[in-house]
């Protein structure tokens, strides 16, 4: 068990969470809580994989995955923004629906065979850096590099650009933005769409790059929910989201790989000799999500920073309040 290889695979696997988490950050920054991430990821994973199988073109698969999940997210946008329904229930419904649809349309897909995958690159100079090079810049899928670019871009977009200013205003105080001519409804639809697109990209990252194939609900295995937890840990900041995403990716890999070797740090590997202890390892990502949430919540309480003020509240023009 090589720690570098685990971390390298962890970065790849963390890219899935990174996309989904940053997508949800955009949606929540605009004031819409979307609990449908798991459903959107499954839609993305399923549609991306089936398109890649049908056409042989994984790029087309990624594109369709993003579009499909983006369009799918608009159901939640319509229900929660236009019809002003409770965002929690609407998001849950989106997950139920996404799971159902992807199971129906993905029927038989698990036996569809191999698919041509997205290319894998090593970066010439950066790959030479000790430790960092092999972990981040060697034999990584092209989507992993897309992830690297997304982090600074998302940060810059949110804090240093006009659309970012409007995004924050709409999520913090929509009435103020509205009074200055910002179209609250349009922006919220748009960012829910972006959240869907990125969740779809996360799904496609699984099915076309990280662990190729379609394994029904087990394709995502709750990563959409972990992403929502990470948003709280990240305090709606893309850079913290990246840290959380990669850490969780590494944890997932560690859980898978730790059972392999006979010895661990010079001792007999207890997980090798007691394979059923693996069930406790399986709990780790979920238990860690809870722990990370506790840390995030404590920090938020202490620093008095919190969710975007209008998160979860439908905006109705002329009604007082947020």
């Amino acid at each position: 068990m090589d720690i570098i290889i685990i971390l390298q695979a962890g970065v790849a696997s963390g890219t899935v969470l990174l996309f989904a988490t940053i997508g949800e950050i955009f949606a929540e920054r605009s004031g819409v809580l979307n609990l449908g991430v798991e459903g959107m990821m499954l839609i993305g994973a399923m549609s991306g994989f089936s398109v890649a199988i049908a056409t042989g073109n994984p790029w087309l698969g990624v594109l369709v995955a993003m579009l499909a999940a983006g369009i799918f997210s608009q159901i939640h946008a319509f229900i929660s923004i236009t019809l002003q329904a409770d965002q929690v229930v609407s998001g849950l419904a989106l997950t139920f629906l996404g799971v159902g649809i992807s199971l129906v349309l993905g029927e038989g897909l698990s036996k569809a065979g191999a698919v041509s995958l997205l290319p894998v690159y090593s970066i010439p100079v950066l790959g030479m850096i000790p430790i960092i090079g092999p972990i981040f810049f060697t034999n990584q899928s092209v989507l992993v590099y897309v992830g690297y670019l997304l982090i600074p871009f998302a940060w810059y977009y949110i804090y240093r650009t006009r659309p970012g200013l409007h995004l924050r205003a709409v999520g913090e105080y929509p009435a103020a933005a509205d009074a200055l001519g910002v179209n609250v409804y349009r922006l919220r639809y748009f960012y829910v769409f972006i959240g869907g697109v990125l969740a779809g990209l996360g799904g496609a990252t699984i099915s076309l790059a990280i662990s190729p194939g379609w394994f029904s609900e087990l394709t995502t295995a709750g990563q959409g929910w972990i992403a929502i937890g990470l948003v709280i840990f990240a305090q709606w900041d893309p850079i913290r989201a990246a840290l959380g995403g990669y850490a969780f990716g590494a944890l997932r890999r560690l859980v898978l790989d730790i059972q392999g070797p006979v010895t661990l740090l010079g001792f007999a590997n207890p997980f090798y000799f007691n394979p059923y202890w693996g069930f406790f390892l399986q709990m780790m990502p979920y238990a860690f999500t809870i722990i990370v949430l506790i840390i995030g919540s404590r920090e938020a309480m202490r620093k008095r920073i919190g969710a975007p003020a209008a998160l979860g509240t439908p905006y109705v023009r002329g009604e007082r309040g947020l």
Partner: protein
Amino acid sequence: MTTSYLDSERQNTDLVVEMRGIVKQFPGVIANDHVDFDMQRGEIHALLGENGAGKSTLVNILTGLYRQDVGLIRVNGKEVKFSSPGDAINVGIGMVHQHFMLVPSQTVTENILIGLDQPRFRMNLQQYEHEVSELGQRFGLNVDPRAKIWQLSVGEQQRVEILKVLYRGAQILILDEPTAVLAPQEINVLFDTLHSMVRDGKSVVFISHKLHEVMEISDRITILRKGKVTAAGLHTKDVTQQELAKLMVGRDVEFAVEKQVQQPGEIVLEVENVHAENDKRLPALQGISFVVRSGEILGLAGVAGNGQRELAQVLSGLRKCQVGVVKLNGKIISNTPVKNAINKGVAYIPEDRTHVGSAPNLSVTDNVIMKNYRRPPIAKGWIINDDAATDFAKGLKDSYEISVPTVETPVRLLSGGNLQRVILAREFSGEPVLIVAVQPTRGLDVGAIEGVHRLLLAQREAGSAILLISEELEELFALSDRITVIYEGQFMGEMEEGDIDTIGLMMTGTPLDQIKSQGMDSNV
């Protein structure tokens, strides 16, 4: 229906805004019923009316937030149809809202830049910060462009609101109740700014229900009552305050309610050196001490946000105090559970009726038993005696004249005045020892205000100790036995007969001792 247009005036003067026959209906109410409104260049035009008269609806139409059902608007002689606030901004109309429309987590400059087209993407904030501070200096609106909104005082936030409008090159400024949050001295500064804007050729709509301010600042006055215009474009110099009052409420105002002369009794509430923090964990109360006796009303004046809410919460047990104690009839009630204060007879009329004082989707019955559901006859062991609860609610409905079809009706369907009656009925029915009333008449019409005043005085006669926290000085003068003023979490002094100048100085932070020692002619 005939609408009379003042044709001669239109030709003679320079009309920047004409609103004709504006009708706006909301479910159940006609907020604007064929309203006409004119505006000349370079004037301050007051829009006067009671709460709910339709002032806000009219200006929301003029700023593109609502769309009129019927009627037309001309700006600089051209007909306009606004489909969003952006359209109104584009023709030079800017609004300064009563409830500030500022994003607390963003800086002053960021708030000013929201909604503009330029720059399209990348923002170099430094450049804009410079522009903002220059603009501020021109109109005497000084504020740090890099400060986050939540760090600013209320007066500074108002300046940001005005800057926001000026930055967009507005020629017509609408200020909705701009003085409601200001102390008398800050009001003078605002009035200076308004005059300098008018000299600059801008026009100002000044919305208020305070007659003396309107008399002081405006050139002309339009009055609304129940959605209709009762006086259009009166010249301020031609009318008296009495005439305005009559046009505004439709009858001569008798604000003074009968207050019985009575001797206060024993000390009921004793507050000693209380320190408490606000929600942001900043000091909100810094050494407050006072007493209230049975059968007296202590009025607490002050500009909003100086610790009034926190004080009320400490007294009712909703907020902990770091230092000091609160005693009720000699027993400590500070830092004990809310339930304890309720059981000892503390009634609390919160400022926010819908968000704190009531459960909107629950019935009138469920709302009136909120404080006594733990005690018989409403409670029967672990269960709630439904019949007893219903009888109790019906009794209150009759004695407090709550107009509602049945006591099963959810309270969200009640009008503001009726909802306030539900809350008063609940709080007063327990024969309270102490009543903490925060802004008990805010947002109510004149009739309802009078009713609330009568109920408060009745409790005073019944021997309750009452702390009345209000921003309406007239209300405090009419009801209180003593008046005290809070400023930044400290008491500035206490008077039996208040006069508005001294109270005003105290509201802006001058302690009473200092005022007395310097004499009344001092300028602070």
